[in-house]
């Protein structure tokens, strides 16, 4: 629409897309996309989930052949039919879902698929990797297995992987979505190092703050189309949000935490709770936690520090090995999942696709889960498909679940719509306690706002809410009181007004303040 003029003083164009289209059955994922990347530039692609960003990147990286249009690298036309050809042309992609072999070492992962002598010379390769790491500030130990690494370290391996292959153009697909604030800062530094070495970066994100601070240019994508390409200097967050979402931007502004009306009675109280993980190792150690009605307690922590086990204990999935769990004053020894449901627990699990829905069932049938005894769904003794679908349609309307019909498989929906489906189901019963684990991870701005508003509304209706999150923006926006967990222990808690990003970030790494 408003493509900027390219002034002759600017660096050479290393990658150009002309009218690139990609069609999946029933969806136009990319619609005549034009895009340029200059040498040493950080060019951000901004857009909601389902806007076609990942598809476009997969086309550039050779995973999907385009259905139309041309791709030029260094002014030469190319046509990739597989990823290896893209790699040979210097394009490397760091995927949102890491493409790593968890059981293998860092070195094995980096050299996989690269030309190597028939008998491996790991000593030499380790040295090369070490040097590469030092050059860009990507420190990792080559002999460690991926499963021993933190998420941030795994990402560094991913970046090393593409650098080792000699990539000049790096595609980073939502790289900060899974990182702690400190890890994100480290990544920004690494990106700057790479640009200094004349690499060009395509950066995908929908975190407005980092988009503005990091990018040279920003391209906004919506429903597969490029809406605008803007210079950073000539735009701001508000304008970008407006372009991205049109009129919806207004609606997407998160509501401020309203004051709670009902009396603050203690709903959940944990006293010195201990629990083991699946392998029998202690995962939770002497957890003390209190959640009152009309209150949102935020639990911050780097993922894998016991949050999953804590959520399972609270929802009756995991047995406790020591301590006391009080629920509305009642001491629960070994509650079952059903006990907790009867007592008014709503649960938004962290892995929403695996534990939140039955992906192959329809949206309407997913509302039936957990509420299958509800007489409203029955004709005499028999389930009525008509009533179930009718209910599904009503809920879809109410929760703004965007899908062709209530009979569509839930697993095919976008993350935001899946989350709305779960929320619609969980809040259909009278609740006392809402347990939300990473409720907005990977969701776009609109879905995030909707989910957050719903949770805030629940709070104002007097529910006790536990919000488990790694996203500090969300933590501060939503919480009244903040707990920090590290290695299965609560390392501290404080009212929100006493908390700061630095303090929480440090505590997440285990430092008590």
């Amino acid at each position: 629409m408003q493509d900027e003029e390219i002034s002759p003083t600017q660096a050479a164009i290393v990658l150009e897309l002309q009218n690139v289209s990609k069609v999946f059955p029933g969806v136009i994922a990319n619609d005549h996309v034009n895009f340029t990347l200059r040498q040493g530039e950080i060019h951000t692609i901004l857009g909601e989930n389902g806007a076609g960003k990942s598809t476009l990147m997969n086309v550039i990286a050779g995973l999907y052949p385009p259905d139309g249009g041309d791709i030029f690298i260094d002014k030469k036309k190319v046509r990739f039919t597989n990823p290896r050809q893209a790699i040979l042309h210097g394009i490397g992609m760091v995927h949102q879902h890491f493409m790593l072999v968890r059981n293998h070492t860092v070195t094995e992962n980096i050299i996989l698929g690269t030309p190597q002598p028939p008998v491996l010379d790991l000593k030499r390769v380790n040295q090369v990797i070490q040097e590469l790491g030092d050059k860009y500030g990507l420190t990792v130990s080559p002999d460690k297995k991926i499963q021993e690494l933190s998420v941030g370290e795994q990402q560094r391996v991913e970046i090393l992987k593409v650098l080792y292959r000699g990539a000049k153009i790096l595609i980073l697909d939502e790289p900060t979505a899974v990182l702690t604030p400190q890890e994100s800062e480290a990544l920004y530094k690494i990106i700057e190092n790479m640009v200094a070495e004349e690499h060009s970066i395509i950066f995908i994100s929908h975190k407005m703050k980092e988009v503005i601070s990091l990018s040279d240019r920003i391209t906004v994508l919506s429903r597969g189309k490029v809406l605008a390409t803007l210079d950073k200097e000539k735009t701001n967050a508000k304008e970008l949000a407006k372009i991205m979402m049109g009129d919806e931007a207004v609606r997407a502004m998160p509501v401020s935490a309203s004051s709670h009306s009902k009396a603050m009675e203690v709903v959940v109280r944990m006293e010195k709770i201990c629990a083991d993980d699946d392998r029998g190792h202690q995962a939770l150690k002497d957890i003390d936690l209190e959640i009152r009605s009309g209150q949102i307690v935020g639990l911050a922590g780097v993922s894998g520090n016991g949050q999953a086990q804590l959520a399972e204990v609270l929802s009756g999935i995991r047995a406790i090995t020591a301590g006391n769990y009080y629920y509305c004053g009642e001491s629960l020894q070994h509650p079952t999942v059903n006990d907790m449901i009867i007592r008014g627990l709503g649960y938004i699990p962290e892995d929403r696709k695996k534990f939140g829905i039955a992906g192959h069932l329809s949206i309407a049938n997913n509302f039936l889960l957990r509420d299958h005894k509800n007489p409203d769904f029955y004709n005499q003794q028999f389930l009525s498909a008509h009533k179930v679908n009718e209910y599904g349609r009503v809920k879809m309307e109410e929760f703004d679940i965007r899908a062709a019909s209530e009979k569509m498989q839930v697993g095919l929906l976008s993350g935001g719509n899946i989350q709305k489906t779960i929320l619609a189901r969980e809040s259909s019963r009278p609740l006392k306690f809402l347990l939300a684990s990473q409720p907005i991870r990977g969701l776009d701005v609109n879905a995030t706002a909707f989910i957050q508003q719903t949770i805030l509304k629940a709070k104002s209706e007097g529910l006790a809410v536990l919000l488990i999150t790694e996203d500090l923006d969300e933590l501060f926006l939503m919480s009244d009181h903040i707990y920090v967990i590290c290695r299965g222990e609560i390392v501290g808690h404080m009212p929100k007004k006493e908390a700061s990003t630095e303090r929480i970030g440090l505590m997440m790494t285990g430092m008590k303040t």
Partner: protein
Amino acid sequence: MEITGIEWFVLIGISAIKMGTPLLFGTLGGVISERSGVINLGMEGLMLVGALTAFVVDLRFGSKITAVCMAALVAGLVTTIHAVVSITLRANQIASGLALTLFGTGLSGLFGDRLIGETVVSLNNIPIPGFSAIPILGPIFFNQDIMVYFSYFCVVLIWFVLFKTTLGLNIRSVGEAPEVCDAIGLSVAKYRYACVIVGGMLIGVAGAYFPMVLTSFWVDNLTAGRGWIAVALVIFAFWHPGKALLGAYLFGAAIALQLGLQTMGIAVPSYFLEMFPYILTIAVLTAVTIRNQKSGASVMPASLGLAFFRGEKH
């Protein structure tokens, strides 16, 4: 005729290696296949096909080497069915493997029927100069037939290829994370086909060992369930060739002991003795699995048994 305790031990030892060798070949074949991510439950059937092929070729042409090669070749061909069904057509690997066992059992029974009563000459033991003179271990390990020596070689070769070469890294990666290999341009199907077929050929060699060394005649269902032990041994061995050797000889010893006790006339019910290797299988698998869960280090190829679909949207 009285024999001393040491002599008895050596005799059981020799027998343990012989009984363990087909298990070893089979397990190695399974290790190769499963490292690339494809379970092969067709082992029992493939062993029978290999056994029958070797027996027929040996009977007809009298060439031992041709017999073993043909056994490998035919078993490799039959495994290709499993490869096509489970890799290209992406059908359930368990079902396809079981079908292969049923098919192989039936096929060998059908063509073996008229061979009952025929015999071939067993392979000679060839002592390795020097080594075979080592007390106790010498006669057990180094006064054996050529196929035993070949199995030693295979253990070392497969270990080296899997863990020290680029090819091995690729194979293991395909078994762990095919989507990763696909994204960097390795052909998942190519590696899986190669591993399943080479693995099948080794399983065929395992089968050949029965008529050529252990029995020298053909009976219906000659391998008597040893293929299933090999399936379990792959897990027992943590998909590692060296541990496959240990496991195969442990079970070989169990079988040898069973036969030894029988010939000594010790009054243990024969049904119990026949059960023994399988009870051991269950016990060992239980122990291994518990230990595995405790340590948390999963050594099972992460994508074992899963068909690979490219371009599945996350």
